[in-house]
Each structure stands twice: as C-alpha cells, then as structure tokens.
C-alpha cells in the first residue's frame, strides 16, 4: 500500500486550525478538526480492506484450481503416460503378430508356387502324350501328395490369416485409450488458460516462441503446417535431384 501524501496544504491548514482552536480554548472546534483528520485515515483503511478482500477472494479461487492441478499432476498425467506406453506395447505386439503370420505364410506360398510349376510341366508333357506309364504312375503319386499338402497348407494359411485378422483388435482399444488422453490434454489446456488469465500473462503471442524439436518426426496432417516439410517421396526425389542426385 502506498501511503497517502500527508504533507498537503489542506492538512497544514487543518493542523493550524487545531492549534488555533486549542490555544483559544475552543474544545468543540478542536474535536471537529481531530475527527476530520481521523476520517482521512479511516477512509484509507476501508480502501485497503477492500483491496485485501479482493486479493483473498482471488487467492481462494486460485487455490481451488491448484487442487485440480495437483490431481492432474499427481495422478492423471502419470496415468496417461502409462496408458500411452500401453498403446505402444499393444501396437508393437499387433505388428509382431502380423509380421510373424506373414513370415510363416510367405514360404508356404513359395512352396505352393514351385510345386504347382513342377506339376504343371509334367502335366503338359502328359497332355502331349510325352510320358511313359511308369512316369505317369509317379506323376499320379505326386498329384496325390500335392492334394494332401495343399489341403494342409491351406489350413496353415487360413490360421495365419486369422492371426492377422485378430491382431487388428488393438485399434479399438488403443483408440479408446488415446481418446481419454486427448480429454486429459484438453483439461490441462483449460487449466493453463485459466492460470494465464489469473496471473495476467502478458507475453505477447507474436514474441512467444514455440519450443522446436530439432527432429520433426512423421508429418501429421494439419499439425506440421508452416514447417518447411517435403510432402511425399516424389518431392523428396525432386529435392535430391535438384541437389545433384
């Protein structure tokens, strides 16, 4: 609180009045002047009390928000971190399950292809009557094996494809988790906005610099706008060829 200036002509006049009334024995007059001086002080006290009341009110409001922020910082953000790690784990597992199924399927396809090709060659010879009885008997045996192996392999392929199918169940769960985290980010955002309002954040938006990662990472539509990003392989190729590649 800045003290009110006491050294004014009015106050000097009042004190002179007081001295005059006292010297002249005018008790009523002296009391009036003293009351007048006391009133000036009291007015200041009322003003100061008003100011304190306002500050107290603001502090109580801010304190209520602190509670909310504490809950966010102590529980919800660590929870969110754990949830996001779980998302990484789930997507990782799904990718590996899919890759395993593909790695198991590809050799089956390759063998199927090569078996078919061999049999096809033999079959063409048979149709051209370019095959003796013994060779035909051998071919018939290989055909029997071919049918058995194919039925067996088709079962394995179906199993792998079912694994690929089931591995996609992460999408539903990770979406739900990520949506919750988005909600949390929104809560944090609105709290931060309130804090900025209360503290009367004065930093100019234009001068406030966004902390920038050296590495931008994957391009996200609508987020990387304004960053000097090359869109897609074709533009990368163009840039590289302009650099002499």
């Amino acid at each position, binding site marked *: 609180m800045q003290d009110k200036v006491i050294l004014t002509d009015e106050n000097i006049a009042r004190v002179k009045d007081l001295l005059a009334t006292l010297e002249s024995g005018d008790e009523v007059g002296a009391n009036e002047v003293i009351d007048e001086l006391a009133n000036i002080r009291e007015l200041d006290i009322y003003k100061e009390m008003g100011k304190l009341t306002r500050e107290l009110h603001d502090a109580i409001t801010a304190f209520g928000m602190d509670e909310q922020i504490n809950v966010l910082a102590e529980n919800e953000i660590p929870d969110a971190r754990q949830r996001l790690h779980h998302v990484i784990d789930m997507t*990782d597992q799904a990718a590996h399950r899919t*890759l395993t199924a593909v*790695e198991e399927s590809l050799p089956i396809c390759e063998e199927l292809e090569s078996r078919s090709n061999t049999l096809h060659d033999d079959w063409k010879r048979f149709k051209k009557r370019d095959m003796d009885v013994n060779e035909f008997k051998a071919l018939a045996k290989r055909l029997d094996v071919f049918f058995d192996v194919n039925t067996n392999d088709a079962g394995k392929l179906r199993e792998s494809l079912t694994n690929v199918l089931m591995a996609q169940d992460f999408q539903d769960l990770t979406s739900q988790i990520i949506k919750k985290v988005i909600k949390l980010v929104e809560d944090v955002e609105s709290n931060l906005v309130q804090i900025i309002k209360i503290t009367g954040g004065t930093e100019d938006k234009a001068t406030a610099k966004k902390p920038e990662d050296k590495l931008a990472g994957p391009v996200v539509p609508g987020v990387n706008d304004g*960053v000097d990003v*090359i*869109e897609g*392989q074709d533009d990368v190729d163009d*840039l*590289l060829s302009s650099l002499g590649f």
Partner: protein
Amino acid sequence: MKILIVDDFSTMRRIIKNLLRDLGFNNTSEADDGTTALPMLQGGGFDLLVTDWNMPGMQGIDLLKHVRAEESLVDLPVLMVTAEQKREQIVEAAQAGVNGYIVKPFTAQTLKEKLDKMFERIEG
C-alpha cells in the same frame, strides 16, 4: 550382398528385412541404433547400410557422418529410411553423403526403385 538394417523399432527392421529378402537379399543383420551399428560396420563385410534417422543413442545422421569419416567405410552405400522430411534435414543428409533417401511410410516398390537406382549409380 550383406546388408545392415538400423532402426530402433524392431517391427520396422522386420518389415525392411522381409522386403529385402523378397528382393533377393537374404544376408541381413540388424542394429537398433548408431552406437551398436558402428562397431558392426567397422568389423567389415557389409555392402549396404539401411538406416533410420531418429533413434536413441546415436542418430542415423551421425552414423552416416561417422561412416563417411572412416577410411574403410567412406564408399559404403547408405540408404536412409526415415519419417523425417523437413527440407533442411534432407539437405543435411545429402550433404553428409547419403546415397538414397526414403520417407516413411514407404512401399516395397519405392525400396526396390531406390536400391536399383543406387546400385546403378555406384556401378556406373
């Protein structure tokens, strides 16, 4: 041909490994960042390095710079496969001596084209 695949995500290493096998490159090794990759490269025997950029430990760009600074590795073909696609980064990789640059997500066809082009240029 022996190829070293460097990426911190094992899924991406598996994808690249499978794509390379499909293209007829069966001899591949894996490392999860530059710090583990560099001694493997220094050990010799590799004909191609396929590396990500953003990795914990040593990043792909620093691995590339180390490779180019090493006498035995100075001519090793390096293909960068990364999600980083800021203009300045692509320019930085080019200046550091990268031989090819593929942005994620990519297709099997892109990988084949870039490898063909790289070897064409190196042999030519």
